């Protein structure tokens, strides 16, 4: 059996999408080109744009950095790629994975910005764990705070868009989890290749008016058109299978960190994942079938959940980030933490902290010409 693409190479795998046998070189090239096609078809990036890549040191973001860097050069995309990482403050986990990110930043000559929970929220995840308790899940805190930290990271480097490493398996898992939980309001956003920026001109005008009278936002009114928290998020790996991502980083011997998070619970996601893995053994197209199904589902208006309803979007009365409620999720969680924290260390002024993180000078970047 010879490679179906070049006709000569030694076959090393069958492609997940069509069972086509391919050699190593053709697999790597096809994988990269398919990501490029997804980017072009969905018009994800503009030339000269500053594109942040959310980098965790894990396989997906490590692969995304390599692929975006490669196709950016191959197809003269002229993207200004930068890395943004979040230090949640999880000893024995994030510090090691951030080493991988730092190494990658050097290898590709991409500037790296690290935003830390401690700096931004006054708490590390380890400290949050101590307040919340071992038994309760910390993943909500981590997720909500990480989204805000990534947004602040984008603001800091002037990125107009952020690319994340979510792959097709992740999306299929999330679709199943939402169905299992009856939380269908999130389905549409889960499956979008691009999210966060689709607001109407009327809503934008309303938010801009709110900015002018918002104590935390008024100083930014002249500098920016959009309020904070609307950085579009894109998923260039939406159609990439996890299995092929792992093989890609394996063949190229990219350095990544593969330890599970200290606080990862025996999670609901785990059930969805096991179910998908078993199903895939029967039919490898199941993952993409779920992604496509999710894409085609549209909720009737009476079932769309409030968080997904853009028309009610406003500014968080405290921090000024866009929110569906009076206070954003991040400010609500922080209030709860301070209430539950017997040590109650400080009155955490999240506005001053954000402003401080934003105004810190960026570290000098060595120009490697990459």
């Amino acid at each position, binding site marked *: 059996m010879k490679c179906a693409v070049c006709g000569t190479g030694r076959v090393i795998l069958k492609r997940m999408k069509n069972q086509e*046998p391919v050699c190593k070189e053709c697999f790597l090239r096809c994988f990269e080109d398919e990501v490029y096609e997804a980017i072009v078809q969905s018009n994800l990036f503009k030339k000269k744009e500053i594109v942040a890549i959310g980098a965790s040191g894990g396989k*997906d973001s490590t692969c995304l950095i390599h692929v975006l860097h490669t196709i950016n050069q191959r197809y003269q995309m002229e993207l200004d790629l930068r890395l943004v990482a979040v230090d949640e403050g999880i000893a024995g986990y994030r510090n090691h994975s951030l080493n991988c990110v730092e190494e990658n930043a050097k290898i590709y000559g991409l500037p790296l910005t690290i935003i830390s929970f401690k700096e931004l929220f006054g708490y590390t995840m380890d400290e949050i764990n101590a307040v919340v308790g071992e038994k309760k899940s910390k993943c909500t805190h981590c997720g909500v705070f990480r989204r805000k930290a990534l947004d602040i990271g984008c603001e800091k480097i002037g990125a107009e868009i952020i690319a994340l490493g979510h792959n097709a398996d992740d999306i299929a898992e999330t679709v199943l989890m939402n169905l299992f939980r009856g939380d269908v309001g999130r389905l549409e956003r889960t499956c979008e290749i691009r999210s966060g920026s689709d607001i109407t001109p009327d809503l934008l005008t309303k938010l801009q008016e709110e900015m002018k009278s918002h104590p935390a936002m008024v100083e930014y009114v002249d500098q920016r058109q959009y309020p904070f928290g609307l950085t579009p998020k894109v998923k260039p790996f939406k159609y990439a299978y996890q299995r092929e991502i792992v093989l890609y980083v*394996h063949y190229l011997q990219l350095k990544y960190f593969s330890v599970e998070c200290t606080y990862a619970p025996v999670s609901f996601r785990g059930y969805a*994942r096991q179910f998908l893995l078993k199903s895939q*053994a029967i039919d490898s197209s199941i993952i993409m079938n779920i992604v496509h199904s999710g894409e085609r589902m549209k909720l009737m208006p009476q079932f769309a959940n409030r968080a997904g309803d853009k028309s009610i979007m406003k500014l968080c009365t405290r921090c000024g980030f866009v929110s569906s409620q009076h206070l954003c999720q991040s400010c609500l969680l922080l209030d709860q933490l301070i209430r539950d924290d017997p040590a109650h260390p400080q009155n955490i002024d999240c506005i001053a902290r954000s402003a401080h993180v934003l105004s810190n000078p960026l570290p000098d970047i060595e120009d490697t010409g990459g």
Partner: protein
Amino acid sequence: MKLTLTLHAGLESLFNQQKKLELALDDSITPVSLIPWIRDNLLSGDPKQQLVVDDAIRPGILYMINDADWTLVDADSPLNDGDEIALISTIHGG
């Protein structure tokens, strides 16, 4: 026959943090029979189930022979001296 077994993406934790093992095996061992052999000779306790389910490699773990997916080789023909076996987990967060 002698084989090299390498463990990737967290699987080394099932093998006392060893990333690479040299195996000396009976010449009749095949891609199919290698997996229960690894379970019975190299693992004990929980790691057995974490690597092997129903005598086959657990779903979500890639089983490569000389860099090629094991399903591409003749599953019932013996492996060859010097073959390189790699097991790679795909199941971990980012």
